[in-house]
């Protein structure tokens, strides 16, 4: 690899870190919810899409600063998550319906949400009002100002998640429920409250991820979150389902792997790399790289 090869490699690492930042927001949100409710949410891609569109409305129609719009949209998606759990998923869980039917419900929900978004905002590509983005050099890397902010948003959010899980009673209760649901219940943890909060957190992270993903790829349409869903799945499963720290590590691996591989193979295939990682993990180590003791 010559000098030029090396600089291309560093560029790819830089892009990989940005992709990993977006992915980690999404994957941590998904894995927390999966760990606590014990079913995966197939409408999660639409949560990202909804975040992007809500931020776009706040940004363009209400002329809010983009970063304020991002926070507002993320919280709104969090509330949508709480509402969906309260009105749709919790009643089904209470009915004692088998796991596979709950999955069909979230699968149906993804069709409903993506088409509601399509009906409201149309199929055209949209983008945010961010002005021109001149890339600048930082050591061997090359970033646009937005990409740096995306990375900062992800770092802050992950620090927040870490502090929540390790320092607060709420976070400890979440970890307890994720580890052993029944044991947490007999210890007096309020199942409904923790589940509701988890949906809020999961939705908020999804909303943030949707906005930063839209910023990174510069334009979005009603299916763009769903197209990203299997990359999130790959990061989550690589890290081990239910493990937020695993999801962070999984996102880093997938982010770097997809962008660095784009140097070697055609960049049109970079999502296929994430898929290949997903298949390899399922075949070789289905419990993920960060296996939690006692869970398989």
């Amino acid at each position, binding site marked *: 690899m010559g000098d030029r090869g090396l600089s291309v490699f560093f560029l790819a690492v830089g892009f990989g870190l940005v992709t990993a930042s977006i992915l980690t927001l999404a994957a941590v949100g998904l894995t927390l919810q999966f760990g606590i409710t014990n079913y995966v949410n197939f409408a999660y891609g639409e949560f990202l899409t909804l975040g992007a569109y809500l931020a776009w409305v706040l940004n363009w129609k209400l002329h809010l600063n983009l970063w304020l719009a991002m926070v507002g949209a993320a919280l709104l998606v969090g509330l949508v998550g709480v509402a969906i759990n309260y009105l749709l998923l919790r009643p089904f869980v209470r009915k004692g*319906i088998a796991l596979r039917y709950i999955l069909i419900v979230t*699968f*149906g*929900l993804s069709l409903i949400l993506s*088409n509601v978004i399509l009906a409201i905002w149309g199929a055209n590509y949209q983008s945010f009002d961010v002005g021109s983005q001149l890339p600048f050099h930082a050591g061997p890397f090359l970033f646009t100002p937005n990409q740096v902010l995306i990375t900062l948003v992800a770092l802050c959010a992950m620090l927040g998640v870490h502090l929540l899980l390790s320092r607060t009673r709420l976070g400890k209760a979440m970890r307890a429920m994720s580890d052993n649901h029944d044991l947490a219940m007999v210890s007096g943890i309020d199942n409904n409250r923790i589940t509701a909060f988890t949906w809020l957190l999961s939705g908020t992270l999804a909303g943030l991820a949707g906005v930063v993903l839209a910023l990174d790829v510069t334009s979005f349409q009603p299916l763009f979150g769903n197209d990203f869903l299997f990359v999130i799945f790959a990061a989550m499963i690589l890290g081990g389902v239910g493990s937020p720290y695993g999801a962070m590590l999984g996102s880093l691996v997938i982010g770097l792997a997809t962008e660095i591989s784009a140097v070697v193979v055609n960049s049109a295939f970079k999502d296929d790399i994430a898929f290949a990682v*997903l298949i390899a993990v*399922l075949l070789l180590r*289905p419990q993920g790289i960060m296996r939690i003791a006692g869970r398989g």
Partner: protein
Amino acid sequence: MEQIFFYAATLVVFWFIFNIQTWGLNIQFGYAGILDFTYITFFAAGAYFAGATAMDKASGDLHYVLGLNANFAVAMVVGATAAGVLGALVGLVALNRLRSDYLAIVTVSVGAIAYDLVGNQRNIFNGFDGLLGIPYPFNDILQLDPQTYTLFYIAFAGAVMLVLWLVAHRIYNSPFGRALRAIREDLDVAEAFGKNTYAMRMIAMVVGCVYAGIAGALLIGFISAFNPGGWSPAETFLIWAAMLVGGRANNVGAIVGALLVPVIFLEGTRYLPAIQGHAELVPALRNVVVGLLLIAVLWFRPEGLLPEPRKRFYQLPLSRDPEMVANVPVS
């Protein structure tokens, strides 16, 4: 008059094709409890491979693999095999000791990857433009006029459907079908009774995919064109809705579901006028209704319109009709 004939004929062939698809999904989910969230991808594999096998060598603006100019019977076998092999590959990754979530995740991911690859790589099946100009099956020998040919195709699709009905029915009532239902209800118990649950679920997965492949081949033979617009993820929901509305694990229910959801509901709303400036509004709302239907059925009538019949097994002589036992005089 002629237009009405062709429209009615198209509806009948579509209904037959939807029946086959719904039975295939029924074998996977209704019989064995396998969550296949990208059923339409296997349908597409069947359609593409059958089409490309029946077509002549790629030329001009069209780019695709195969191009064998084969008889349609051969093309159908190739299509069904392609769908089955793809199903086996998915099963290989996800059926082995993993929870049902993982299988669903793998199917969703396979669907996304396949759609992206086939759409964006022109040299596989001509990208987003898709295949077109597939020769009418068997008409090189039959040389029929369009109207008679359409009648012939209804009979042909009907005959294929009948065979697949018998196979699905036979599987359900066989010891293998019983074992599949046991696995569906409780995998661990079936395993404890010595059933090879992995192999059995794999067979159900592959058979379901072969059904999808045959349905795909029948479609591309009939409309002689196929592109990614015909297998968008929304199409998978349609088959799921048909199966769940009609009644899972009930193949007569599947026929009713296929008639109600894809044929009557979708065709009935196909000619709603588009709203000026919002071309995608009506199709979007139709998809919302399909999604709501899926959820509403699971809430209000999870067993579907025609529930799975309760199996009656032979009773031991001791547990005879209680009334009869009660009427035996005590001496």
